Structure formats: C-alpha cells, structure tokens
C-alpha cells in the first residue's frame, strides 16, 4: 500500500516539478495533466473513487483543454522566453520563498504527533450516500457552487470575447 502511495507521489511530484521547470508550455501542460492524473490515482488509492473520476473528468477532460487552448491562443511564435537577469532573480527568490514555505510545512508535519487511526481498509462511502450528503446537509453549498460555476462561465465568455455587444453575430 505504502509502496503504491510512494510511486504515485513520485509520479505526481515528478510531473509537477518538471512541468514547472520546462520552457515549452505545451509540454508543461501535458506534464501537469500527468500530475493531475496522478492525483486522481491517489484518490483511487485512498478509496475515493467518485472523487477520482470527477478529478479525471474535470481536470483532464475540461481544465486541460482550457489550458491547451489558452496556450495555443496566446502563442507568440516559437521563440521561448529569453533567460534574463530579472527572470533568474525571480526564479531564485521564488525558490527561496517556496523553500521557506516547504521548510515550515515539512517541519510542522514531521514535528507534529498525529493521533491517527491508521485504518487498513478505506472507509466505504457509496455514491448514493455521497449524493444524499450533497443534496442533504450540503444542498445550499451545492446551489452556491452551481451559481458560481454559471457566473464563472458567463464571466469567462464575456472576458474572452472581444466582440462588442452591438456587433451582430456573424452569420455565415
């Protein structure tokens, strides 16, 4: 079990780290998709299959497409970003800040004695129970999320469209 977890972790972290370091945005994005798939695998490993499928469906099915489209729509020729001093210094300071945070977090995790019920079997939560939970105690949140998604959709359409509202739809 733990072995599987470590493999999955390595996949996730490796993909993510390489993605963050690459210059080629497409490759970065594809690697990140791999990383997300790893996260989905992690969910599967942890027994949350519904979440895992949702992760795949949304991240790999939808967000990845958005990312790729964004990349393609914003290409500035094939010339990669030049390595200049500002970007270097930014990289270094970023690394320092990230390292700081990592240090703090890792220190906290390692130093904190968790009272853990290391259950061998994953807790069983059927889709039906999950649905009941969503529609029962969390119904309001669900509605709010629905609203958020609608608004985000409309907002994104508005932001991304450069057509002025008075311009007619170009009919073929």
């Amino acid at each position, binding site marked *: 079990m733990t072995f599987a977890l470590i493999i999955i972790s390595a996949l996730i972290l490796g993909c993510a780290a390489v993605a963050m370091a690459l210059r080629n945005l497409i490759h970065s994005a594809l690697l990140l998709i791999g990383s997300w798939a790893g996260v989905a695998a992690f969910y599967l490993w942890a027994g949350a*299959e*519904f979440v895992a*499928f949702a992760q*795949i469906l949304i991240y790999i*099915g939808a967000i990845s497409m958005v990312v790729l489209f964004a990349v393609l729509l914003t290409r500035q020729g094939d010339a990669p970003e030049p390595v200049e001093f500002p970007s270097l210094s930014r990289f270094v300071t970023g690394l320092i800040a990230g390292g700081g945070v990592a240090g703090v977090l890792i220190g906290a995790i390692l130093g904190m004695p968790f009272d853990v019920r290391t259950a061998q079997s994953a807790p069983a939560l059927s*889709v*039906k129970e999950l649905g009941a939970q969503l529609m029962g105690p969390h119904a309001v949140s669900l509605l709010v999320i629905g609203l958020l998604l609608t608004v985000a959709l409309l907002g994104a359409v508005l932001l991304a469209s450069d057509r002025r509202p008075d311009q007619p739809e170009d009919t*073929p």
Partner: protein
Amino acid sequence: MIIAAIDSYLEVAPLAWRDAVVQWCPEPTQWLVHHLITIVAILAVFGTLFAFTPLAERKLLGRLQNRLGPNRSGLPWWQNGPKLWGLTQPFADAVKALTKEDIVPAAADKLLHFLAPVLIVAFSLLTFAVLPFGRHLVPVGLDAALLYFFAAGSATELAIFMAGWASRNKYSLLAAMRALAQVISYELPLILSVVPIVLIAGTLSLQDIVLAQGFWTFGFLPHWFVFTPWGFAGFLLFLVSALAESNRSPFDLPEAESELIAGHLTEYSGFKYALFFMAEYFGLTALSGLGVTLFLGGWQAPCAFLQFIPSWLWFMGKVIGMLLLFIWIRGTLLRLRIDQLTRLAWQFMVPLTLINLGNAAFWSLTAGWTGPLQLVRWGVSLAIIVIPFVLLGRRLSAGRHPRTYRYAAS
C-alpha cells in the same frame, strides 16, 4: 429442465471458463491472470468486432450508394478460390497497415507523436471495463461506473490534441482544435442526456441501471427506458451526441477529407493511423454499448419468454444493431458546417437535454399515478418534450436558408 440447465450454464459460461483457467495458475499471480483473461477476452471479442465493422460499413455504404462494396478478397493462398463475399478484407487491411512505412515528420514532437495513437486506443479501450456485457459479465463492478465511463472517454480528447499538436502541421493543429471544440461541445449534451437515467434509476452503477429495466408488462412489453417519453427523447439526444462525440458522419468534420485533409490524422500513416482508426471504432462501439445499457435494456431480453437466450448474446446483438444504425445514418445524412454543428449543440441539444431532465423529474415525481392518471402522465411528459422540441427546432432554423453559392450556380 435440460433447456433451463443449458441456459443457466450458457449464462455463466465465460466466467466459468475463466475461473477454470485461473485455478491453474500460481496463487500470487491469480489476480493478475484473472484480470488479464478478462482483458484479453474483451480485446479479442471487440477486436474482431472492430475488424468486421468497417467491412460491414463499406458493404452497407456500397449498397446504399447502389454499388457492391468490397467483395474481392478471398483467401491469400488460394488464387481464384472462393471469394467469401470479401469477408477476409479486414485481414488484408491489417497486413497492409502493418507493413506500411511509418512516417514521422522531421519537425514533429516525436514523443507526443508516438504517444497520441497509443493513448487514444488505451483510453477508448478503458471504457469497456465497466460495461455490463451480461447478467454476470461485468468486468469491473464500479459504484460510479457511469462517471468512470465519461472520465475515461474524455481523456481521448487529450490524445487528439497531442496528435494534432505533435504533428507540427497547421492543418493538423486546426483540425485538432476543431475536433476538440466539437467533442467538448457535445460532451455536455451527452452527459446531460444520460442524467435523466441516473435520476430515474437512482444509481450510477450500470449493472443496476440494467436491472432497473428488467421488467415486462404482460410479459412482452419491456420496461426499457427508451419506451418512455423522456427516455425516447433522451435516447435520440444521446444518439446525436454520440455521433458527434465519435466524429461520425454527419459530424465528421475533424477528419473532413476535402477540407482538412484528414485533420489531425494527416501526418499519421501505417499502423499509427490504423490505431486511430481502431480507437474511433472502439469509441463508437463503447458508446453503442452504453446506449444499449442505458436505454435499450442492456442485456435484458425484449420479451420474458426470450430470456432463454444468454444475456451477453442479447447485448452483443443490440450493440451490433446500434452499429448498423450508425452506419445507416452515415450513409444517409450530409455533413454539417462547423457553425451549424456548434449551434446545434448549444442552442438545441443543451436546452433540450435540460428540459428532458425536468421531464424525467416530472416522471419520477408522478411515479404514483395510476389508472387514468397514467395517461395524463404520459401526455404531460410528451408535451414537455415535444413542445420545446418544436419551438427550439423552429428557432434553430428560423431565418436560415439554404446557402447559395454565387459562383457555383452559373
């Protein structure tokens, strides 16, 4: 008695054979073998099916177009032997594909160029894992099987993108973008059109959904979902979305030969091309299977007295029927333009699927109506879907006339 015994045996025969094989393996590898056999079985069955579907398509299209279709290929070692109605054509094609030169463009992203066909086949095969092929034949009995199906299906988009981008060919890329736009557009109505099923059946498990359709009125009127107003509408919507999702005619723009020189497949040849081809047919078959499972009662027999035929045979029969239907559609309808395609998705399919969802909610709320109220229930349900259909349909075509081409006329 005997018939019943044979019957029940046939029903579990594939499982029994698998278990028999597994028992011969060493203990630690048993689970692996168990799964491998399942996979191999699926691959074998559906691979064969894949082999003959294009043949059937070509022959059928030929008939539809008043010609014969492939009927020449006989046996390789027997010159002037029997032609076997061209049944060996798939094998000839396979050999040709395998032996063809594999061309990779110099500027291509080699890794991705290679990964794309592999992934696409892998992803489209993944979906078969959760289809209930028979009463006892469920490869993976997932609780959230339906979600899994769509999750796996959506991953193919990634492969399409990779294929388009890795080719470093602007036509490929454009075609890939178009394909993606289309697939994403139709994923929404596809998913939404099956949500009513989930609502009525109350489960995401495909096996449970099939079981929920396992009743007959008077013994010969099956309770398949397709035989309800919402179910019928959902089935049609599903069908259209599935056609678009699998890039089939009349939605086959991504690989429109005349416009985009086969789209994202331009830079592929040989076996890689065959893999894409295979993935397309696998996807189509998987969607047919899903449609059968969701709407057409899955492996359930249409009449109670026909249950003696093994359930997996029923399933396969229905799938093949669906495939033939798809072929028929391909031979009948004209290809859409991209704007017509997207407009159809967003202005027609999505609203209609949403309304159908409401329709299913109505159906579920009025489950208790009996007697004459039943008629009312049917009437209202029909009205809920037919009236928006007519209105939306009218709006869709309002003010759109057949396009006239100025230079083509004279």
